[in-house]
């Protein structure tokens, strides 16, 4: 075997063999200092586990909250008169035309629909009177549509659209100092501007956990409400329930097309409840910020570790550069070492994070006491749920990966700049 043969066989530039060599060296190198490597891996694992766990909990909890609100009463979509959302007055009520009804019934993605009429009223019992929102619903439709009727606290829901029976929020009943079975007067201004007042019997109360409903709502039959509010056969909205949240965009756009020319518009739940959506967004952003900080802090730790492992090998690096290793290879070597550590940390972090999320998914945490109150005040359910979504794992992993790589830029630069002699003479 002579030199000509070698020269013939050699492959200049980065080749598979060099790559294998660097990977082999890199892997063995990280285990030279087991403790340091493991601690660094644990740091990455910690950051990622926390990221995935927290994001899972955040997103899972949002999902549950949204689903709850949507299924409780709001629905995925609402058909309203244009301008009603900004200014919910009786003037902006509308009649459900036959074509609208057919349009809704024809769309297979719409699972159920419910018409409602809303108005402000004053409810009085003996000397007490309180303001409340009158909500006219059609019991059979509503039963098939939302969960509001399952939130009966005591008593029962009215059965027909027409009976002069009402269901009020449990807190409202207390505030009114009334009891089930009592007769109350509800006063409201009708569409024509006149004041209507009628007697109704309270047959039940509901408790949803949301102060809006529990202390401020009066449910009555749709026709009863139309009578009270002199609204003829008009409604304030038609709420639509779909199979799940994912269907919203497509149904919304096809409905929008169909409603062109009418004065109606179709809004998704987040347009109907911008507060809720923004609260979620606010929480979301602050959650991501915190995790970002976490990853950055861990990245500093990685940078320091890599820097230490590099400076203590300067002599070795000097020798290796002297005998002809291209400096890019040396940079790649250190890069591979970092990648190994970070990747293992990421894999462990993903497993642990997914594990935590899975556990909470199957065993959600429910709050009581003080926390329950604070949550309810903000319109959130007092529970912690989680979700396991690949996108979440992916995002957290990518973020950790990229930030860790950025952290190694400084040490890699030092390696790249190393002159062989300086390395050899390094003390």
């Amino acid at each position, binding site marked *: 075997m002579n030199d000509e043969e070698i020269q013939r066989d050699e492959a200049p530039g980065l080749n598979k063999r060099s790559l294998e060599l660097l990977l082999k060296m890199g892997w063995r190198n990280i285990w030279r200092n087991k403790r340091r490597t493991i601690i660094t891996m644990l740091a990455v694992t910690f950051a990622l586990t926390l990221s995935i766990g927290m994001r899972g909990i955040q997103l899972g909890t949002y999902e549950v909250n949204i689903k709850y609100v949507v299924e409780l009463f709001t629905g995925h979509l609402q058909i309203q008169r244009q301008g009603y959302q900004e200014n919910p007055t009786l003037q902006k009520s509308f009649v459900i035309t036959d074509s609208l009804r057919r349009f809704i019934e024809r769309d297979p993605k719409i699972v159920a629909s419910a018409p409602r009429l809303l108005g402000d009223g004053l409810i009085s019992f003996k000397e007490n009177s309180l303001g409340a929102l009158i909500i006219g619903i059609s019991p059979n439709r509503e039963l098939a549509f939302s969960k509001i009727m399952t939130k009966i606290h005591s008593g029962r829901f009215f059965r027909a659209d027409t009976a002069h029976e009402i269901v009020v929020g449990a807190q409202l009943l207390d505030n009114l100092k009334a009891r089930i079975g009592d007769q109350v007067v509800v006063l409201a201004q009708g569409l024509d501007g006149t004041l209507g007042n009628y007697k109704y019997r309270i047959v039940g109360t509901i408790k949803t956990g949301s102060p809006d409903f529990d202390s*401020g709502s009066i449910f009555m039959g749709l026709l009863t409400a139309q009578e009270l509010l002199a609204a003829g056969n008009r409604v304030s909205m038609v709420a639509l329930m779909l199979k799940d949240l994912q269907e919203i965009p497509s149904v919304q756009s096809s409905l929008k097309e169909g409603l062109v020319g009418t004065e109606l518009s179709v809004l998704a739940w987040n347009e109907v409840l911008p507060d809720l959506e923004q609260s979620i967004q606010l929480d979301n952003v602050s959650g991501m910020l915190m995790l970002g900080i976490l990853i950055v802090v861990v990245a500093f730790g990685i940078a320091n570790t890599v820097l230490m492992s590099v400076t203590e090998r300067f002599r070795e690096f000097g020798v290796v550069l002297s005998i002809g290793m291209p400096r890019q290879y040396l940079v790649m070597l250190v890069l591979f070492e970092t990648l190994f550590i970070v990747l293992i940390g990421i894999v462990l972090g993903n497993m642990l994070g997914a594990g935590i999320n899975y556990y909470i998914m199957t065993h959600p945490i429910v709050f009581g006491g003080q926390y329950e109150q604070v949550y309810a005040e903000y319109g959130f359910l007092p529970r912690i749920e989680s979700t396991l979504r690949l996108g979440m794992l992916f995002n957290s992993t990518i973020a950790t990966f990229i930030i860790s790589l950025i952290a190694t830029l400084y040490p890699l630069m030092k390696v790249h700049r190393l002159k062989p002699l300086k390395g050899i003479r390094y003390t």
Partner: protein
Amino acid sequence: MLLKIAWRNIWRQRRRSIIVMISVAVGIVATLLTETVSMGMMIQMLENQIGSHVAHLQVHRKGFEANQVVQNYLPDRAKVEQLLRETPEVEHYSERVISFGLISSASSSSGVTIVGIDPQREEKVTTIERSLVAGQYLSSRRNGVVVGKRLAEKLGVRIGDKIVAMATALDGHVGSDVFRIVGLYQSFSSEFDKVYVYIPLTEAQEMLALDADVSEVAVILLNRDRLNQVQEALERGLGSSYEVLTYPEILPLLVLQLDLFQESMLVFYAIIGIALIFGIINTMLMSVFERMTEFGVLKAIGMRNGRLVAMILLEALLLGAIGAAGGFAVGYILYLPLSHSGINLSMFSASLNSFGVGAIIYPVLTVEGVLNALLIIPLIAVLGAIYPALKAARFRPVAAIRYV
């Protein structure tokens, strides 16, 4: 002195020490900003409520807070006024008639809380006058009403339009009266704007058949710290048919939230601390192992293990403390201008308004905030150095010297 040695030791490896300090600083800056913004938000929520309606203290007939009906008017208005005038800590007070009611315009109606006020007195107790965005404030002139801008939009009315207010009067009949809109206000809380309407006190009394009685007196003190003492004094002076409530008792949830927040900040710091501790353990381990020979010599010439451990812990403490101090300084410099100009979070304005906060948040730095920032992380740094320090102490001197 051990401190001087520890100090010099950390600068022997300048780059490494600086990186640790920077990582601590970054953690502190981020946490500080988060804390001050959140704190600012919650304090603003509370202050907005206090300033727009609740005031420092409220005096009612006993049972009014639970059941805010017209019947529960103050037993003896004059007695309350007298006592308040005699209490030196009281700066201002304002008497109100409060009732739920219905407001109707030509086109629509809305459930509201009608507040009958003495305009001059109310102006000194709450921010209602300053919140006007259109028109004028109430004069004691008849029949003026000030409503929230959002409510006016809902009712489809403008300045100068008439509305009808209705409420159940003392004797049970539904009293009503016509009012002209003289002013529109806008507060930080969309919920508040939709609900509170202001009419002159005398009009309210007339409409509700109250003669000269009032429902509540809202009180502002000269010094908020005297809150509990004043409450006690008033309770003693008024007796058991009255209730004197402080704002924490009226707004328990907001106060609760502030307390819970402190707890959650600790958790936040703990998490950042754990993230930092990995780096500190590694750094200290490295720093200890490369000085093993030196430690061997030190111990051979008589330095006790305890002092060695203390020295290493001190080094970690210094790293953590300097990083924390630096981070605090940077955080503070960032915080100062923000605390004056506020942070614009208008993309969340709908949600913030529903919490009762404006879109501009002014960060607030509390004493706990400062202490947390400066104490927790250095302590965590020391914790992280315990393992490396013990490792340094356990080596026998000769083994250490041979350790190369």
